[in-house]
């Protein structure tokens, strides 16, 4: 995250529960800028009642533990502690500060000030007061004014000021962590609280250090590989001029390409640059998250090998990984990228000459990938995109896969046994009977990314799509395997299996019907 946008404050939200202090300490050591302790009282209008009623615990408990743990471990200064979860009044803010919070999150109350009437329909696009909807007709009903929210926060601030005056504080900082000032008798002496011991909740850790956020984290990103890449690509970022960079990469160069992707996105938005504008040739073994969040126009060619999390959140870039040309290993029999490749990828292309690890393309929502074999749980929770596997897969392929398609070369004929068929059907790949037919579907594709050849109508044109991908794969990575399949297409084609999510096909067919009806 910090790599993609070094200016961003990175927040980690933790559910308030016993043990959250330890997690918060870990998160702080991992350089989070804030830690948010979220209580169980709140909840969005879209969350199920069971989650609203039965998840988490009061923010006071988690906040007290977090603050105490951070102070005890000398971490408190480095991180801003936030608290949220049904904060409503200035009194809530003051109690939060006394228990150790620097910052306070409000959501429901200002929404109500702006006109929310807690319909709990946020997820249905039917908000009748136009707050949580994209429907232009319903949005007309929105009557809120910024002043309503401003007014609300003025009241909060005024109440906080009054309470601070009563307690004798001049600044919020003085107040943070002063749990000794909380008057707890009223709550603790209540008959329902009999037998409960609150002393740990209100314990104050003695220290000479400041107990509020007064330092910034050292994120150690000043000298990462991307700084070099950005310098090399400066021309391309500023003027769209094509550049080519070649450099070595090592396994300590983590998240290579993310900061460059962030720079491109900052300047050009999601549209990015033209294909291959920034071509980066890297030699060596990458660290984790190679090519994460790479933007459109970025091509990252790695001669060597990837690591875990290659292409995490890929946002339009192209990733090419193949073994060193001098290497004698058989590419299709050896691992080229690690686990959880393409986690949450949105768009882009990947060509991996070699075998991927487990959970390949998990949560992929739009990227295209070619790989020569995968481990267990391939294409898990995938919702879009195309994955072509020209080698064996592990078990539980396509678990929870609700969108996109996958093609698997099933030479052994036992893929059906290793595929999780709960949400998908397996179909044969057939040759196109009619070239005209193939072109017809291209106007009503589900996700028109301009990659018409590959991302056209997913209900047909399979053989052409596979061939196009194989040609790209052979071209970019020099894959012998792809070359061989293309040479013997008539032999290999019947061995391909198309993995098609049932609901995805239904949605596509409905959309085609609609388009045809017009």
């Amino acid at each position, binding site marked *: 995250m910090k790599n993609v946008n070094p200016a961003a404050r990175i927040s980690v939200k933790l559910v308030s529960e016993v043990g959250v202090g330890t997690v918060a300490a870990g998160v702080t050591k991992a350089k989070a800028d804030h830690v948010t302790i979220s209580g169980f009282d709140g909840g969005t209008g879209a969350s199920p009642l069971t989650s609203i009623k039965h998840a988490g615990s009061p923010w006071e408990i988690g906040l007290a533990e977090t603050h105490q743990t951070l102070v005890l471990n000398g971490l408190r200064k480095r991180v801003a502690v936030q608290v949220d979860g049904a904060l409503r009044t200035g009194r809530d803010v003051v109690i939060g500060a006394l228990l150790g919070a620097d910052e306070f999150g409000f959501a429901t109350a200002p929404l109500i000030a702006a006109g929310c009437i807690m*319909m*709990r329909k946020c997820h249905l696009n039917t908000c*009748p*007061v136009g707050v949580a909807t994209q429907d232009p*007709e319903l949005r007309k009903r929105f009557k809120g004014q910024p002043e309503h929210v401003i007014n609300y926060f003025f009241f909060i601030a005024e109440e906080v000021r009054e309470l601070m005056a009563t307690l004798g504080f001049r600044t919020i900082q003085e107040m943070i962590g002063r749990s000794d000032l909380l008057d707890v008798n009223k709550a603790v002496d209540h008959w329902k609280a009999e037998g409960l011991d609150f002393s740990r909740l209100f314990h104050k850790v003695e220290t000479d250090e400041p107990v509020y956020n007064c330092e910034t984290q050292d994120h150690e990103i000043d000298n990462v590989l991307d700084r070099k890449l950005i310098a090399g690509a400066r021309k391309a970022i500023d003027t769209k001029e094509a550049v080519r960079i070649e450099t070595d990469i090592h396994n300590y160069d983590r998240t290579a390409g993310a900061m460059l992707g962030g720079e491109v996105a900052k300047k050009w938005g999601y549209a990015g640059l033209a294909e291959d504008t920034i071509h980066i040739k890297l030699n060596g073994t990458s660290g984790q998250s190679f090519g994460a969040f790479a933007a459109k126009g970025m091509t990252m060619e790695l001669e060597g090998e990837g690591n875990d999390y290659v292409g995490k959140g890929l946002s339009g870039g192209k990733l090419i990984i193949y073994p060193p040309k001098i290497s004698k290993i058989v590419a299709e029999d050896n691992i080229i990228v690690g686990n959880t490749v393409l986690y949450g990828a949105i768009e882009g292309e990947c060509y991996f000459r070699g075998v991927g690890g487990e959970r390949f393309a998990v949560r992929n929502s739009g990227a295209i990938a070619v790989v020569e074999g995968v481990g267990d749980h391939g294409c898990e929770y995938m919702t879009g995109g195309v994955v072509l596997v020209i080698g064996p897969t592990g078990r539980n392929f396509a678990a929870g896969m609700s969108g996109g398609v996958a093609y698997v070369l099933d030479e052994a004929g036992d893929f059906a046994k290793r595929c999780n068929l709960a949400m998908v059907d397996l179909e044969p790949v057939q040759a196109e009977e009619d070239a005209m037919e193939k072109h017809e579907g291209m106007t009503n594709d589900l996700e028109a990314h301009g990659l018409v050849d590959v991302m056209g109508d997913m209900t047909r044109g399979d053989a052409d799509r596979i061939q196009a991908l194989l040609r790209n794969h052979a071209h970019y990575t020099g894959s012998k395997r792809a070359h061989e399949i293309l040479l013997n297409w008539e032999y290999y084609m019947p061995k391909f299996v198309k993995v098609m999510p049932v609901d995805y096909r239904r949605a596509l067919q409905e959309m085609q019907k609609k388009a045809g009806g017009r």
Partner: protein
Amino acid sequence: MGKATGFKEFARQTPGYEKPESRVRHYNEFTQPLSNDELAKQGARCMDCGIPFCHQGCPVNNIIPDWNDLVYRDRWAEAIEVLHSTNNFPEFTGRICPAPCEASCTLNLEDIPVAIKTIEHAIIERAFADGLVQPEKPKAATGKKVAVVGGGPAGLAASQQLARAGHAVVLFEKNAYVGGLLRYGIPDFKLDKQVIERRVAQMKAEGVEIRTNAHVGVTVPVSELDAFDAVVLTGGSEKPRDLPVPGRELAGVHFAMDFLTQQNRRVSGEAFDAADILATGKKVVVIGGGDTGADCVGTSNRQNAASVTQIEIMGKPPVMEDKLVTWPKWPNKLRTSSSHDEGCDRRWSVATQSFFGEGGVLKGLNCVQVDDKFQPVAGTEFTLEADLVLLAMGFVHPVHEGLVDGLGLDKDGRGNVKADTVKYQTSNPKVFAAGDIRRGQSLVVWAIREGRQAARAVDEFLMGSSTLPR
């Protein structure tokens, strides 16, 4: 929950009315019910709000989204079960309730609330037609005797609830038939009296003993109540507000309720021993701009009055309320009832300074425009010709003579019988009060609520605990 997008797809639809020129020629109800298909669509408009404001808008806390949904899904038998769980008499409220539920409906923010009252009306009428309204006899008798004094909606609701709890209930009614203002005040064209009869038949089958022509404190001695383990007073707030200005004694100035009750008796063929008050051929002025006034307008038109004028001391309310200020509460806005559509002149900010006449017979009123503090504006005096003036200015408190004073009960500052809304207990521990006699003049639906809640309070008082709903 109806249909998630129903409110965007279907328009609000309420029943039509027979045309004014034909409906003023009779005293029958004139609404034209919606078809089942249309009702399903209206039910579909309900959006099952996360915060169902209608639950609180409705004084009996009807579980409105649930039965809207059941109507949408064509599950009418379950719908009446849910509706009856909070409201003993939906056939009354479905007809004459001003529907504060619809005012509090989320869709009323856009002035297109769900047609809740129409759906309620349809559910209960269908239930009666399908034979789903059957006596609910108690499983066991408790052996306790309870007197309910006053057969209006509060008394009926209390009696029914208490009888269902197994108590021996005797309902005392001073008139020939029970129903209170439902029977004698509200004109037949708004509420057919058969509607009361079929409900009374159910109550009798459930064991409620009804003693009519029994005016406790007048024709029945108060001491007769001593024989009961508990007494519930539901006598209403019947003392009308008078207008003590010069000329009040002229012949032709009457209380609205004297006029309306006569007509209702005429329609049902019940004899009454008082001179006829008729609007036929007369210039009628109704003083008071509320619902009783509107009923006087409708009745006068049916009696072929020469002209009908309704005056109101308060200013003309806005046609459209400011929703951001009022919603989900009941807004003050201009309300035009079906009776107004039948023809009448309405004037606001008008105070009557005196009546004038010849030979003791009313000829007209001297009026003046008033400001928002009801102070006369100099130079705005005017006269209205009138042969009949109907005073429809509300009721101040219950009649004290006889029952209330006879029991020696404490009263609140407004002259109502003093009792809270938890125990409903008066200063006499075994005497309870509910409805208008306790809260002052109000809606039928509030009377039903109080009757139900008081029944529970009485049940708790007699048995130590109660399973009746609050």
